């Protein structure tokens, strides 16, 4: 990791068609600011695995409601609820 950037390999299909299984993602770690529409890396509230989702909205108090672009194949805030901002560990800068 350099300049706070990190490369991840995307697995699974919940962010299709934007991110395909096997794509590489350049991610800024500990982002200063997260906005609606950003694709973020966060810790799954259920098992601490890192997952990648899109921020659909930010609630009052700063909790993020995240969903997969491929809604029919995604488990996200619709099942585990909004996540606190501290759990957002990175923000997608570039997909490769």
């Amino acid at each position, binding site marked *: 990791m350099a300049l706070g950037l990190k490369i991840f390999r995307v697995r699974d299909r919940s962010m299709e068609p934007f991110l395909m299984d096997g794509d*590489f*993602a350049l991610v800024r770690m500990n982002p200063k600011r997260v906005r609606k529409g950003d694709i973020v890396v966060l810790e799954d509230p259920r098992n601490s695995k890192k*997952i990648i989702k899109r921020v659909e909205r930010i609630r009052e108090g700063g909790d993020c409601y995240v969903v997969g672009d491929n809604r029919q194949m995604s488990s996200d805030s619709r099942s585990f609820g909004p996540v606190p901002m501290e759990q957002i560990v990175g923000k997608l800068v570039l997909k490769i």
Partner: protein
Amino acid sequence: MTWNLANRLLERLDKIAHFDEVYAHCDYPCGIYDPHTAQMAAHTVIRMMDLIKEMQSKKGGGDAEMLEYQHNLVRATSIKEQHAEICKHELRVLWGDYFKKEHADAYPKLNELVFNGLKLASKAKQTTDVKTAEELLSTVEQIAEIFWKTKGVETKRVTAFYPTKREIVYPKV
């Protein structure tokens, strides 16, 4: 440098450096759902109703025959009850855990089918009228077809290899 080249370079790097993985994951804990069990349960309900009907025509007049008949009737009724409940359970799991709002939006009949399926399974416990069980099976089959459509998998209806000789939905794989 083209994206294609960048990607190939990263592929090679990944083999050496093993980038961390980030999951665009689809489900947790397992994502293992299948409408097959609900269909099997509906077939079992039909089979028990068929057997109950068959018993009526075969029951003898003697004490031993009557005991045998009563025993078999109780068994068949009990199994019918259990499998109607299994069918309800399976429908609840599909509806509660697998199907999402997007599925219900894409297939407007889905919610009503599940609702009817649950009601028909309850009704099948209360009756020996095979029409109720056949309606239950038909409803479960339609749910099975929607289930596979949501996964982009085609289905086929075939006569099941069960003594019920009614239809069953299989994914075309």
